[in-house]
């Protein structure tokens, strides 16, 4: 229970960093969750983040799993609210303003500028994530096969996620 205020602080802060997607916030999440607050080990964070990829809906709901592990169901609820509500309100407000900004030429500049940087932030997050997630040659292989296959076909990624999980059970123990 004593972790609740910290959970609210950390996850509402992290939510503000998710420009373009959740991956942008991963490096900061690792620092805060693993190193500052010791809620999870680095390996556990990778596990929880990966579980998020198996979930339907927004994958970043993995924050609820962190809350659950740290503080039980109430922790899960608090993390989810802290992560999704503040940015939700911002989106709601900007969404209503957006049309009025239609003639404002900077609107497109901001969109283009942030959109480009968001790709860099996601790649940066992914590098941080990959460094911890890829250990040994079997994971390298699984990641490569998934990457190549998803670029070449429209198969639902969930099959690669689950298939790699099964392979992991046998090959990565």
């Amino acid at each position, binding site marked *: 229970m004593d972790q609740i205020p910290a959970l609210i602080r950390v996850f509402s802060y992290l939510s503000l960093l998710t420009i373009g997607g959740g991956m942008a916030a991963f490096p900061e999440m690792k620092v805060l969750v693993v190193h500052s607050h010791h809620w999870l080990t680095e390996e556990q964070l990778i596990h929880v983040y990966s579980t998020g990829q198996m979930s339907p809906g927004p994958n970043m709901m993995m924050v609820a799993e962190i809350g659950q592990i740290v503080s039980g169901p109430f922790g899960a609820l608090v993390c989810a609210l802290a992560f999704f509500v503040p940015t939700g309100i911002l989106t709601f407000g900007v969404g209503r303003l957006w049309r009025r900004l239609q003639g404002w030429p900077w609107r497109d500049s901001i969109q283009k500028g942030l959109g480009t940087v968001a790709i860099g932030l996601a790649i940066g997050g992914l590098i941080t994530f990959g460094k911890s997630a890829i250990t040994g040659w079997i994971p390298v292989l699984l990641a490569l096969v998934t990457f190549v296959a998803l*670029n070449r076909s429209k198969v639902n990624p969930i099959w690669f996620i689950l298939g790699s999980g099964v392979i992991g059970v046998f090959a990565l123990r």
Partner: protein
Amino acid sequence: MGETAAGAAKAAPAKVKVSLLELFLVFLKIGAISFGGGVVAYLRNTLVREKKWFDDDEFLEMTSISNTLPGLNATNIAILAGDRLVGTMGASLALLGICLPAFIFMTAAGVAYSDAHARPYATAGLRGVAAAAVGLLASTWFQIGKKSLKGVYDALFVLAAVMGINYFKLGVPVVLLVVGGVAIITYRPHVKPEPPAEEEDQWIRSLH
């Protein structure tokens, strides 16, 4: 902006009558079946193709607003769509609907994980999942990059952001402020290389 009759009819699809219950159930369903990431594709399929609540342009507009703002694209689009269809309550219920299944899934995963994380099978399986997640996310961003990065500046800003995060360990706020700021100034209105046709029209019209 051609076919004016169709365009005018499509201009106000928010006039579609959607009940709060239907809206909630539609987003709940998307939240429950959108396995494998790419929720945006599920949203587009349902909202544009199946329900015809929005046309492609409107959906694209909601996607670009979502992209520019913090928050996930999936939840941001849900909020924007819900608001346009039914207003404030619509936005809230769309967000709740799309989040609820994942919330239950992840909370249950947390219970199972606290219970089982010492067990070697779960750990080994998740190692495999993590590896595939790297491949999945890399392919997602590779596709986005391929589509939206054009020219040297774009590549430089991406590189600068990656270096800022991974090499200089600057943190997202600093990178956003510095690289994002420089990028916005670089793409400032009057040096924009190719304004989209629609914008150009507006600009030309504004001269008269």
